[in-house]
């Protein structure tokens, strides 16, 4: 069983090897034939964008992070809810109760965030 198992994966190994080789080949080739005249303009991070201003290590509001987390919570809820609606009938009462519990726990998380002042922007 195992030898079969390994040969089945041979294609994947070839694919990985070919992919790696392709990357190396392209980089090498462009390096060889490309004339290189570097100027300060060309060395800027975005050659045709807004010129970089200031230090990128500036502090930013940690609230973005809290909002990001809250968004993620409800994103995941939606991910679970959509497949659940499709099999709602076959799951029966137990499935319904379980989803209610799930939503209650998430709602509890929202209550927690609200009481802790995570929803306030100031």
């Amino acid at each position: 069983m195992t030898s079969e198992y390994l040969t089945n994966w041979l294609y994947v190994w070839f694919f990985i090897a070919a992919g790696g080789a392709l990357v190396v080949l392209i980089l090498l080739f462009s390096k060889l034939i490309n004339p290189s005249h570097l100027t300060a303009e060309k060395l800027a991070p975005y050659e045709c964008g807004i010129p970089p201003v200031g230090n990128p290590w500036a502090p930013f509001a940690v609230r973005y992070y809290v909002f990001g987390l809250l968004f993620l919570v409800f994103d995941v809820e939606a991910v679970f809810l959509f497949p659940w609606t499709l099999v709602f009938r076959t799951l029966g009462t137990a499935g319904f109760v379980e989803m209610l519990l799930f939503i209650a726990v998430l709602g509890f998380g929202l209550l927690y965030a609200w009481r802790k002042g995570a929803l306030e922007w100031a």
Partner: protein
Amino acid sequence: MNAGNAVVVILPGVVVAVGAFVVFLVDLFVARKAVLAWIAAAGLITGAAVAVGQWISVSNGLHFNARKPQTGFAGMVSLDKYALFCVVLFAGIGVATIMLSDAYLARRKAARGEFYGLLLLVITGMIGMVVSTDVVAFFVSFELMSLPTYVLAGYLWRDERSGEASIKYFVTGAFSSAILAFGLALVYGASGQTTYSGIAAGLAKLSGLDARGFLVVAFVLVVTGFGFKISAVPFHNWAPDVYEGAPTPVTAFMATGVKAAAFAGFARLFVAAAGLQWQTWAHTMTILAVLTMVVGNVLALPQRNLKRMLAYSSIAHAGYLTLGLIAAGTSGKPLGIAAILFYLFAYALMNLGAFGVLIWIRNRRKFAYTLGEIGGLARTMPWAAILMAVFMVSLTGIPPTIGFWGKFYLFTAVVQANLTWLAIVAVIMSSVSAYYYLRVVWYMYFREAPQGAEMEAEPKSSQLGVTVAVSLAAAGVLVVGLFPEPLLKAAEGAVRLIFGG
């Protein structure tokens, strides 16, 4: 199998999880945080009471079949005495941690509700780990245990060391979780099953050299994940820093609770799923155990910081505990696992006690946990010094303490598995450990107190919780040390079923 039965199987865990939510909820609306500790303790005690009730039911065959464990969620969880024994142990560790935390947090002005809520969530994960009979449920429980622990380690976030401990623990912990997941995925790949019994059946069908190589890789990865969690050498480097930086009650909990859950959970996984393949992982485990015992004990010798010393001592104890797994794997007999359960119980008592004494001192005066600072403790805090001496003697493994019986049963199991040389290494190493444990006693009784170690007046927040917890732990160390029989019988009863009896 209907859903109601499945809930009965995981009922102790459900009770503790509900307790966690009640703590979070009450925290939102109550200004006096002292009540939260009581709610959390009540949740844990209720969970333990449910487990005791189920244990009696299983023993008497009231609602459960004593010969066949009750399973639920398509075989993902199982209710048996092994899980119930561990549930009671975890709940006890949790209650002790709450008693140790209360005054400590009040003194550090960090008495917030999240502490107890997160603690209960960790314990829910720990219960999940021992109830699981499926690698997916096991891994989810493992993560449920790990994630709140990272937060608890950084709970005193204004303290730089606490933050450092949290980040270090998180990075190494997340890394080891990933390695464990790879290992479990390979086990699934080899066997095509996720339940423990299915994996055992699937692995039994494998044969040939290819399969063996495959399994070696899988087991090495799983053992690596396990080694990180129990801080076995060479995966131990995070432990001293994290143990030193984390708030002391959290350190006590990590050293006892998290380690106990890792051992109990992985022991079940190793025995039930991979017991038949013992030959493929025997060498890895043996090297791990010997390295852990030697390095842990030797590196504990020069430590002048008591929290770091206890961290290295906990590494060394992880080495002794691993011997139980090796004994069970080699002999195929349950004595090794029963000895692990007994030792986990013993280790929890003596380690919670030792950390409890440190917290006790810390609550009374300036204390940076160095060895010099406990000089003359026998005169300034005589009761604390006596109890600390009991814990140190027990950690060394000198009778009539529980630590002696713990080591005795473990090493007996090892000798019965015809691995006498391993038992000899362990005995030599535990005599090395006498130096650094008994040095603490020497400092307390035969050294003068350092300058500026005057007691502050009794703090406003009551020390009652710490005093009671530490005294109870010492009583447990001595009483079980004198009468180890009932606890050993319980541990032996607990492991009978998971050995396919």
